[in-house]
């Protein structure tokens, strides 16, 4: 082999290895014919190395691209879920507000109609809303109407009594109306202390009671 040819082949090998290290696979010439000599076997080995590394590198790039795509998809899903959660929270807040309306039915008389069960969260919301209303409006009586409550448990009774006591601290008297037979039975069974509370069969009677008290009739 001529020195000149040897130089050229070594230069090609060096260039191939440099491109390989730089990840510039397209710049590496891959030729099927390899000269059958000692350097030829080195050239063939380098060629195999180039193909193997190229394959693994591109496969890894694919995996990275895929991971990026998956990450983007996950981020998009997280954004959508967060937006959905925010909507749900807004709706829940609206429902909470609607579920504990405080109505001024007469001057200095508020009605708190309760429908359904009162859990801790709703009990707290109920108390907050009522105390806010008492602070905003001149109030002497609050009628807690239980016509829409078919079932009470210890927790519900506790929440109601807390509301009553909190209102009393602001100088407001409370009374219950519309207690259903099943509710009355439960309250009696669980020993709820209702002695401090006036009760009436329905909202109309309760309102009449309040008006009598207000006007000393």
């Amino acid at each position: 082999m001529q020195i000149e040819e040897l130089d050229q082949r070594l230069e090609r090998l060096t260039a191939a290895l440099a491109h390989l290290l730089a990840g510039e696979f397209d710049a590496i010439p891959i030729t099927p014919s390899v000269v059958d000599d000692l350097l030829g076997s080195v050239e063939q080995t380098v060629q195999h190395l180039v193909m193997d590394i190229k394959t693994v590198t591109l496969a890894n790039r694919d995996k990275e691209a895929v991971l990026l795509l998956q990450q983007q998809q996950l981020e998009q899903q997280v954004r959508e879920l967060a937006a959905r959660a925010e909507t749900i929270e807004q709706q829940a807040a609206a429902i909470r507000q609607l579920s504990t309306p405080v109505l001024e039915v007469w001057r200095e008389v508020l009605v708190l109609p309760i429908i359904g069960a009162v859990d801790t969260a709703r009990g707290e919301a109920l108390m907050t809303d009522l105390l806010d209303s008492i602070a905003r409006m001149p109030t002497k009586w609050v009628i807690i109407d239980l016509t829409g409550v078919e079932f009470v448990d210890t927790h519900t009774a506790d929440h109601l009594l807390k509301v009553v006591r909190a209102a009393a601290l602001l100088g407001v008297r409370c009374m219950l109306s519309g207690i259903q037979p099943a509710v009355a039975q439960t309250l009696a069974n669980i020993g709820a202390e209702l002695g401090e509370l006036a009760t009436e069969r329905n909202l109309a009677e309760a309102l009449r009671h309040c008006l009598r008290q207000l006007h000393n009739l």
Partner: protein
Amino acid sequence: MATIAQLTDPDLLALERRMQLAVHGATSLAAAAQTYVQTVYAALSDSLVLLRVFATVPFGRLPAVNQAFVRQLAATVPSGDAARLGDETLVLSLLGSAGSEPDWCDPSRSRGHIGIPLLSVEFIDAIPMIARLLKQLGVELDWLGREDTAVVGKTFGFQSGVFHVAAAATAVDARGRKIISAQDFVSRYAIETVFGLGGGYVGTPVFVTIIGFCRDHLDAGRVEALRPHIDRFKAETVGLVADGRVF
């Protein structure tokens, strides 16, 4: 010449490299696919009866002759699936073919498999082998009908997988249908095992699939050993796909 089952690890590696060297420099994905099947079939013709390469290509990017074939095929389908055929519909297109019959050595001479339009889940499900092939290769079908050609690349293109029907003559799907429905072909050529290798080009709608019909029995591990073919084939053709040089 050895059968696939007899290949040692160095044999497998040598074949992979030979194939990659042959595919290197192809001017289109179809040319690369044809070179691939010719090279591998020449090396494994004791085992292989037929070796084919398919790829998903949007209908609008198919040559006119392929479009005509696909349009005709879609028209034979009951229900309204034919109406879904549009430029964006992905078509599992035959790009390379080599086998023991002369007609099998040129994709353009295929009578029935030039292109299978992926029209709907129901349409694909009616072709048990394709349904199982796509499922095993990790291509879910729920995107069909969304008319989003990028969905394969975006959602499934990264997945490479292996399809394997060990006993082509007897294997049935969950509904009791023969997975390889062309049983006349299976018995005439004594097909024992059918395998597939698949992989997608990330970010493109192109998913390439190699399908081999063998006369010797291959277990799952042996088919798995052929999986690097997909990575090597993709390494040499990723640029072609990126440039849109499919045919």
